[in-house]
Structures are given as C-alpha cells and as structure tokens.
C-alpha cells in the first residue's frame, strides 16, 4: 500500500456525553497533549452509535473510528454501553471478514476523571492506524 510522505491518519471519535467526552474535556483542561488526528462527535451514549455510523465514517474516508463510553456499570442509562459492546463486537468481526482491517474499529471505556487515559487511547489508536496505513477501502484505486 503506497503511503504519502507526511500522511496522518484521520480518526473519528464517538464520545459519550457523560464519561468519555468529559474525559476528553479534562484532558484539554489539564493541558495534556494528544494527537490532533481525532475529530470528535459527542453522542448521548455509546449505545447511540449505530454500526451504520462506523461504516459511513469509513465510507467517507476516515482511517479509523473510535467509540468510547462509560465503564461497564457506570452508564448513565444503565445498559447503553453493554449494548454498544455487543454491536461493536459484531461490527468489528463482520467487517474483518469483509476485508476491513480490524484496527480501524476501536472502542474504549474512559471515565470523566481519566483525562490521562483519553490521551493514551488516542495516541495508541493513532499509532496503530499509522501502521495500518490509509483507508483506501472505498476509493476506486485499491
């Protein structure tokens, strides 16, 4: 796979409004550094993330998608993150069978107090995506 000089992966993050988004906020307030590769969409709950969003993001040319929510048991709506867990597990495995690199679909639990963990997750995911290379699945060139 050809890779342009200075290419940076584009990562789309769906962050739950109660935990992960607050965690990302905290990372900012604490002036922690994390890669600028992530574009964030705030969702009410990680359970709001329809697998369709993930596929659409890949279709639009994002190199990876990160869904992040509250820790198990901490969901503001009790069960939203558990449901997200099932959906994302299915989506990841299924897309792997179709031929999408599994690294492109990522999930994490980040609480509102974990600004540090948020920066770590974004750095790790960005690093993995750099190794995988650009998402050319939906371009005509592949």
């Amino acid at each position, binding site marked *: 796979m050809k890779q342009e000089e200075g290419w940076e992966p584009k990562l789309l993050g769906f962050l739950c409004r109660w935990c992960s988004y607050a965690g990302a906020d905290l990372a900012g307030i604490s002036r922690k550094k994390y890669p600028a590769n992530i574009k964030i969409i705030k969702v009410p709950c990680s359970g709001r993330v329809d*697998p*369709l969003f993930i*596929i*659409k993001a890949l*279709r639009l040319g994002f190199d990876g998608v990160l869904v992040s929510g509250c820790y*198990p*048991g901490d969901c503001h709506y009790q*069960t939203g993150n*558990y*449901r997200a*867990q*099932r*959906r*994302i*597990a*299915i*989506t*990841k*495995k*299924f*897309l*792997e*069978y*179709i*031929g*999408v*690199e*599994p690294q492109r679909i*990522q*999930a*994490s*639990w980040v609480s509102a107090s974990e600004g540090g963990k948020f920066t770590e*997750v974004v750095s*790790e*995911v960005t690093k993995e995506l750099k190794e995988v290379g650009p998402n050319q*699945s*939906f371009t005509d060139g*592949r």
Partner: protein
Amino acid sequence: MEDREREQKLHHEAKTLLEQGQVDYIIGYETGSLKFTTTPLITKDEDDTDRLVVNPFIVNNLSVYLPEVRGKAGIVAKRCDSRSIVSLIQDNKIAREDIVIMGIPCPGLIDLKKVELLLGKDRDELDNITREGDKVMITVDGRERDFPTTEVLFDNCLGCEFPAPQEYDVLLGEPSLSITDKVASRARIKELEAVSQGKRWNFWREEFSRCIRCYACRNVCPACFCQRCFVEETEPLWLMPMPRWQDNLMFQLARNIHVAGRCTDCGECERVCPMNIPLRSLTRKMYELVDELFQYQAGMDKSAPPLLTAYEPTEAEDFIR
C-alpha cells in the same frame, strides 16, 4: 408422508380455520405462473384453500407478510420460516396468539438454478422433478435421471439439520431425516476465509459493482421490518442515490449488521437477488459470528430477548481498551 397427503391435510386445516373463524387470513403457497415455481397465496376465501400446494419448491419465507396482515393469520411455515416467526415474536412485531402456524417438516428445497446448471438445460425444457429421500428424479426429453439430493438442494437447506419447524400449532406429516452437507453449505465462506483481507474486499467490491440496489433482498427479508429504512433517509443522506459499488456494499453491510441475531439463514435474500450476488456468504457468516460470540441462534426461543437488546456484562470485551 407424501406431498399429496400433506397438501390434502393442509387444505382441510386451512378450510377449517377459516370456517370456524379462528383466523382472518390464510398465508400459503400456490402454483406459480412459471414452471415448477410457487407463489405466495394470501386469502380470506375458504374456496381458495384448495389452491394451496406443498412441494419441494415452496421457497418463499412467508413470515415477511405477517406484520403487514391485520387480524389473525394462519400461515404455512417450514423450519426456517418458523424461526423467522419466532424472531418476529421476540421483537414484538407479532403476537403468538394472533397466528396459527401450520408447520411443514421440510426435508430441504430444490434450487432450480442448481438443477439448470447440473443438466445444462433451462427449467422450461424439464418435464418433471420429483424427490424421494436422498434421490431426485429429473425427467428430460422423456428420460428419467437420478441425482443425489445434496446436489440440487439450496445451500442453506444443506446446512439445516432439523426438518421440523421450531414452533407450530399443527404439523403436517412426520419429520423425516434431513439430508445435509455441511461442508457444501458453507463452501463459499470457507473459500473467502482462506484468502487475504485485500482479496476478500476486492471480491465483494466486484460482486457489489453489479448490484442495482433494487432492495429486493431487504423487502423479502422478515428480519428487515423497519417502517423507514436508513437507505431512504435524506437527512442525513446515508447512501448516495446512484448505485455505485461503495454505497451498494455499505448498504448491504449495514443491513447485515442490523439484522444480526434476527437472520435465521433462510437464504431468501440470495435467492431473490436479480444480479446473483452471493448474499448468503454474508448472512451465514453473520449467523455464525453471532453464535460464536454470544452463543445465540436467531428464532429458537420466543421468550428470549432479541440479541441486540440484551447483554452479558462480561462477554466479548477483549477488544475494548
């Protein structure tokens, strides 16, 4: 029991149900306009029940009509259909007490495309097709030829172990042993699994460049019961209206994930596809994934919560950071 006897029993049952007012409609199969084919018959008229047929070509999954029919319905169901019915009950789309299921112990259906390939002839040129246990007799030009049943059954039928419907009120005949060929049933999936990721993607890319997005696969699917499908949404516009392969593939991937845990591997999507896209290689794989990850099979237990609304706190979490 012979198909003929089953048919007579079915006529009797259906007529009685309508006469006694136990159901408002009967949903079954009648002889189609093309050779060997059958077509759905939905009727309120007792006299129409004589047109109902049972044969190895009753391919439609009739449960797709159930959420649309108002009132009580009597439905003819094979095993795969009965599982779709159970799945619809799980999803609260229909109520068990509103339907009377006339179950058919189905030993597998004959795929006319396979027959045509096998003989190198069009179905119009064939005189007769009959089945007896593990043999299928096909008469061409006045000459009868035998074939092993496994060569002409639908791929999904080859993977179906139990002929008896999962849920029924009346069973038309005794279940006989199923003739299966599990290897052949998932041969195409195995082939795909053996090649590299890039090749798999290219394979699907090629297949979906043929797709004309007619949505036949969606419309025929009992698991696809949304009143408004995401493909028709305009705000946001999920899919570009022009059927390019990217959007075609995206549609099918999202559809498959949406019906995960509802798909019973009835194979209807693949059968109706006018472009012969091997859709069952997607649906069957999803069926297996769901089983592997969550030990869940669609349409087996009508009191169980649907897959995507339930959870176990400790399952499938190894990928989460």
